[in-house]
């Protein structure tokens, strides 16, 4: 519970860093398509490559080459299987439709390499919460559980200028969410490709 409170404080304060306090402060808004690869426990539940995924990032410089920001995302992992499930002394089979909807809400710190106007490789440390819904549909039954997981996500990426104040973005992020409720720890990797509206980067 302490961790969740701490996250909420960070999340509430993070947008302030992106507020337009000064026009000269470098600011970054990016939107990326983020397909994902499930790992470990996430892969056990849904082992298919996730084509559905999007991410939105806001960053604001606090020092030369250093920015803080907020990252929001949505990944949808799915799998259809007919494998047998054992529970409550029963063995149950049928077409199962499994889903994981993951909504990362992360505060972050980024360090940018390179110079303004050029290609900008960067590394980012994300920390925050993952709202994850696990759902299993079988027959006319549906079992689902939603938990708020504490998690973190190291990220590397590069922004390359396309036009003034517009850059293409490529990034890779390892997402790790600690266990919450009756759900084990979850992990997956996303690969982002998109555009960033950059002012001063």
């Amino acid at each position: 519970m302490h961790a969740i409170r701490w996250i909420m404080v960070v999340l509430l304060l993070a947008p302030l860093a992106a507020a337009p306090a000064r026009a000269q402060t470098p600011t970054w808004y990016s939107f990326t398509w983020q397909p994902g690869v499930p790992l470990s426990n996430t892969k056990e539940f849904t082992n298919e490559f996730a084509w559905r995924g999007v991410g939105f990032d806001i960053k604001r410089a606090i020092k030369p080459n250093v920015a803080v920001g907020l990252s929001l995302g949505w990944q949808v992992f799915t799998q259809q299987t007919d494998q047998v499930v054992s529970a409550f002394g029963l063995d149950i089979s049928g077409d199962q439709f499994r889903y994981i909807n993951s909504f990362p809400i992360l505060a972050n710190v980024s360090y940018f390499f390179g110079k303004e106007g050029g290609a900008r490789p960067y590394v980012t440390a994300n920390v925050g919460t993952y709202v994850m819904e696990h759902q299993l549909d079988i027959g006319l039954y549906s079992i689902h559980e939603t938990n708020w997981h504490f998690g973190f996500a190291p990220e590397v990426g590069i922004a390359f200028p396309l036009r003034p104040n517009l850059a293409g973005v490529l990034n890779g992020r390892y997402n790790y969410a600690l266990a919450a409720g009756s759900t084990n720890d979850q992990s997956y990797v996303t690969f982002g490709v998109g555009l960033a509206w950059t002012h001063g980067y």
Partner: protein
Amino acid sequence: MKHSFTLRWFATCYGVILLALGGGTALLTACHPDEPTAVSELDVVATAHDDTTNFAGITTYAMPDSVVEIVPPESVATTPPFNHAFDRQILDSVASKLNALGYTRLPSYDAANPPDVVVTIKGIVVRNTDIYVSYPWWGYWGWWGWPCCYGPGWGVGYPIVTATQYDVGTVAVDMWDVRRSDPVAMRVPAVWTAALRGLVEGSPLDTPARIDQAINRAFDQSPYLGHP
């Protein structure tokens, strides 16, 4: 600022369009894509067995040559009739599976020379009715009149009542261990049971395949029934 048409500009526009299409697709398919599209995908088979039973020690069985229809006493008036058109297929398929596993079917139940187990097959159909009430929001245009006016906005609309009705059929296959029957308590322990459950919907032409698939699943997920 003047922009000339360059490859970079074209790539930018193309990227924006791709992102919009990708994002739109993700949103349209929502949180739970790839949901069931056929009635057969809603069929479920559940099995349970008695862990203390040594199925290898069971060699003979008897099975009534009919599927018995069960009607819950509390819903005699509303329970739809069980369709017996597929009884023969169900009975033959179950017997075929048991015979393939090494069990020998006796032609009838003989109290003087009883089988090890009796296998019974029951059918039941239950009608389910779900009623939903929703209060959609509706928009309205502004109105000008005495004493004044109000602008456009949103309000709660009339409730919409939605009712859905569907029938669910279950075929239950039970194996009773008559060797351990208790004549005083009039009890016979069930050592294996399989419930084949599905919607009583869809084309009748698909029903035989659905029955075969369900019976196959019941035996496939019960490997302990096999004789070494």
